[in-house]
């Protein structure tokens, strides 16, 4: 079975239909709700079933874990999407629990360690307690925050109405500042009778340091050594934003590391569930703000799948062109910033920004904005690429970028200092990479040729000739080289795409600001420059998504950072983190 999949790599076929219900009678039933698919697993059997799914059926990559709240049925649901790294479609399974506190579900960290942060997120947002989870704390909000924000009955302090469009905006325009409506006059909320003077402050970090305590002291050769804890971030020049890592050090060597996040938690999902379907498109731009052209794609894919929309040819090509330009630009910035982290302050970054500016010029001319493109629509894109801009793109992909990539390669790749800082650092074994749900260039640098553009093609990627660059040492240098190769492959795709792009419409149907999306659930995913980006959307047939969850590569790839860092020097942590390529808008959402 294994080998047939390998040979099918280029064009994976929908493989055998798996009948989980027959395999686990009584414990697994098909999810029969209209519009839903997958399997409903009894929560008592969850660990057993998922172990079998991993070991017997070969679904080794846990892509997505998320909660869904069904207050009407008084149920909390956990949804899992698993994939094979050899390619093919997803296997979806779910488990339900009563909507009481504490709502308990067994943790799957023992089966797929990559579930760790995602389960913590589900706990934070939904209050689903994962029994057996090694370190179940709040992740995006702080310890001590009141309420589980993603539950349907949670109302934000500025809550006005459940769904947009809000009635107060028109025709009476009775709108006032949200501050005026809130009793506290600000975006805050307290239980009635709350007394801030009597309230005993609990340290939000207490649990975190408690979790690190086990690393604190050590007896070695009869000498008792004490480790020090270093907090890097949230304001640190090398963490690429407001990311924080708490590092336990033995001298200069990292003993343990905990990522702390949520400093940019902007409540994407909650806002997304209040928004109409279309209104979410500009919000997706703000996820991975380097790649706004790519971000809306999986969302559009998901919604188009529900709506049954066919995207016109030209629009498919435009999406590929814009998306691949975005990938080039993303990797270039990464290289520039990597050198900042290594101490070569700003020269390579300036070179990288130069190319980026030229690409952004195209975005600005076509989509209207340099960074927040808001370019995708359901069934196509908003605007055509006209002649002049097409010429600009051609100039870039045929002339300038190939030249500049080689220049970059010359500038950096063989530099001895660079190689010394990168070679053999941050090793992550292929087995670990898969277990930790790592995707993107990091996974490919570990020797696993998993790229969704080939493994589960979307759009029109199956028409282009390109290779998936793979390296096998799984260190920082390889992660860098994989990306260099990837840029070259991007150029190959681009060159084919701009040659082949047909004339024709660029949007299916008429532009509409309110779309009708049939009820159902869907998971759309793409190979974003940083890894697998997925959108899990549930529609109930109304104007707004019932559930809108984003599986972001930055968030899930960060799970593996501890594994990569332990045993290396603190100075290498900066580089390792840089090479994971996180972006905070996406990490915290």
């Amino acid at each position, binding site marked *: 079975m294994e080998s047939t999949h390998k040979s099918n790599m280029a064009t994976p076929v929908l493989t055998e239909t798996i009948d989980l219900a027959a395999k686990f009678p009584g414990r697994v039933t098909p999810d029969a709700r209209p519009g839903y698919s997958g399997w409903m697993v009894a929560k008592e059997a969850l660990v057993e079933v998922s172990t079998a799914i991993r070991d017997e059926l070969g679904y080794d990559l846990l892509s997505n874990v998320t909660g869904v709240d069904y207050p009407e049925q008084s149920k909390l649901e956990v949804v899992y999407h698993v994939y094979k790294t050899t390619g093919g479609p997803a296997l979806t399974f779910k488990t339900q629990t009563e909507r009481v506190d504490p709502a308990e579900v067994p943790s799957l960290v023992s089966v797929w360690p990559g579930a760790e942060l995602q389960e913590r997120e589900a706990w934070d947002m939904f209050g689903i307690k994962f029994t057996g989870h090694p370190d179940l704390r709040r992740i995006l909000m702080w310890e001590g*925050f009141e309420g589980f924000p993603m539950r349907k009955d949670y109302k934000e302090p500025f809550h006005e109405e459940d769904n947009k469009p809000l009635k107060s905006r028109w025709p009476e325009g009775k709108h006032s500042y949200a501050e005026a409506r809130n009793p506290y006059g600000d975006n805050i909320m307290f239980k009635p009778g709350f007394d801030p003077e009597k309230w005993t402050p609990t340290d939000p970090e207490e649990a975190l340091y408690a979790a690190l305590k086990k690393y604190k002291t050590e007896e070695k050769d009869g000498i008792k050594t004490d480790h020090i804890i270093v907090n890097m971030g949230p304001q640190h020049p090398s963490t690429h934003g407001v990311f924080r890592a708490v590092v336990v050090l033995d001298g200069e060597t990292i003993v343990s590391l905990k990522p702390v996040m949520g400093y940019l938690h902007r409540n994407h999902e909650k806002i997304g569930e209040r928004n109409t379907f279309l209104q979410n498109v500009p919000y997706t731009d703000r996820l991975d703000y380097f790649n706004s052209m790519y971000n809306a794609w999986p969302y559009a894919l998901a919604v188009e799948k529900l709506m049954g929309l066919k995207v016109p040819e030209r629009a498919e090509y435009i999406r590929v062109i814009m998306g691949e330009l975005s990938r080039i630009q993303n990797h270039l910035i990464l290289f520039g910033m990597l050198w900042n982290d290594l101490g070569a302050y700003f020269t390579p970054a300036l070179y990288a920004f130069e190319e980026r*500016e030229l690409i952004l010029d195209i975005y600005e001319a076509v989509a209207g904005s340099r960074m927040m493109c808001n370019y995708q629509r359901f069934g196509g894109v908003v605007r055509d690429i006209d002649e002049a801009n097409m010429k600009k793109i051609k100039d870039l992909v045929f002339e300038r970028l190939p030249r500049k990539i080689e220049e970059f390669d010359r500038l950096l790749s063989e530099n001895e200092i660079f190689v010394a800082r990168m070679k053999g650092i941050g090793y992550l074994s292929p087995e670990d990479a898969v277990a930790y749900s790592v995707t993107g260039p990091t996974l490919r640098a570990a020797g696993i040729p998993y790229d969704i553009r080939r493994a589960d093609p979307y759009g029109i990627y199956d028409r282009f000739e390109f290779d998936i660059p793979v390296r096998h040492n799984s260190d920082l240098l390889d992660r860098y080289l994989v990306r260099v190769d990837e840029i070259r492959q991007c150029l190959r795709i681009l060159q084919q795409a701009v040659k082949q792009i047909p004339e024709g419409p660029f949007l299916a149907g008429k532009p509409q600001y309110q779309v009708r999306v049939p009820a159902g659930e869907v998971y759309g995913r793409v190979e974003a420059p940083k890894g697998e980006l997925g959108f899990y959307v549930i529609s109930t047939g109304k104007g707004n998504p019932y559930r809108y969850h984003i599986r972001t590569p930055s968030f899930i790839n960060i799970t593996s950072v501890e594994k990569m860092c332990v045993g290396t020097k603190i100075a290498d942590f900066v580089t390792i983190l840089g090479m994971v390529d996180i972006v905070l808008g996406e990490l915290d959402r």
Partner: protein
Amino acid sequence: MSTNELNLPDFNIPSELDGKVAITTLDRVYNFGRRSSIWPMMFGLACCAIEMIAAQAARYDMARFGMEVMRPSPRQSDVMIVAGTVTKKMVPAIVRLYNQMPEPKYVVAMGACASGGGPFKEGYNVVAGIDKFLPVDVYVPGCPPTPQALVAGMIKLQEKIDKQSISKVRWYQKGGDSVEVAVPFLGPDLIDPRRIPEIKAKAAELATPSAQNAPEK
């Protein structure tokens, strides 16, 4: 840099000395020095920060205004460009950083988020504008403001500095050495220490049955 910028318009400088001598006031010299070396803090919060970096990069090059020295340490910086969404979890750190900056210090709210909450204002973890905590000098709207817009905002800040007078500025007054802002802390929700009595009164009022029955608005 020519001396013309420093010259007071009312004095006639003989042509042979033009460009070599400037007649000016102390305020002008003082402000000229400060406006030409505004060091921003290297501190980005969200998407706007990328445009801030782009403004520092080759194409827009803020170095032309003496703003190229981005300092990661608040102790060495003059202006805090709040570039991005301010979240409740982050705001204690931002206020602390602000308190650590030496006088004279300025705050530029870059982008819709920092100015007034931006598109994420309705979120439960978002602070609706940094001006709820810090005194903001310049607001740059836009989402994100293009690098050029940021530079325009920084020029606006320079204009503001030009209008200040050394005898009146806050940091040379008695006692007013530096503005300390009380650092908010995280409880069940974000608590601003300056507003504790208010919160207490309001929460007590909400706890009385009459308030509970009354409609929210």
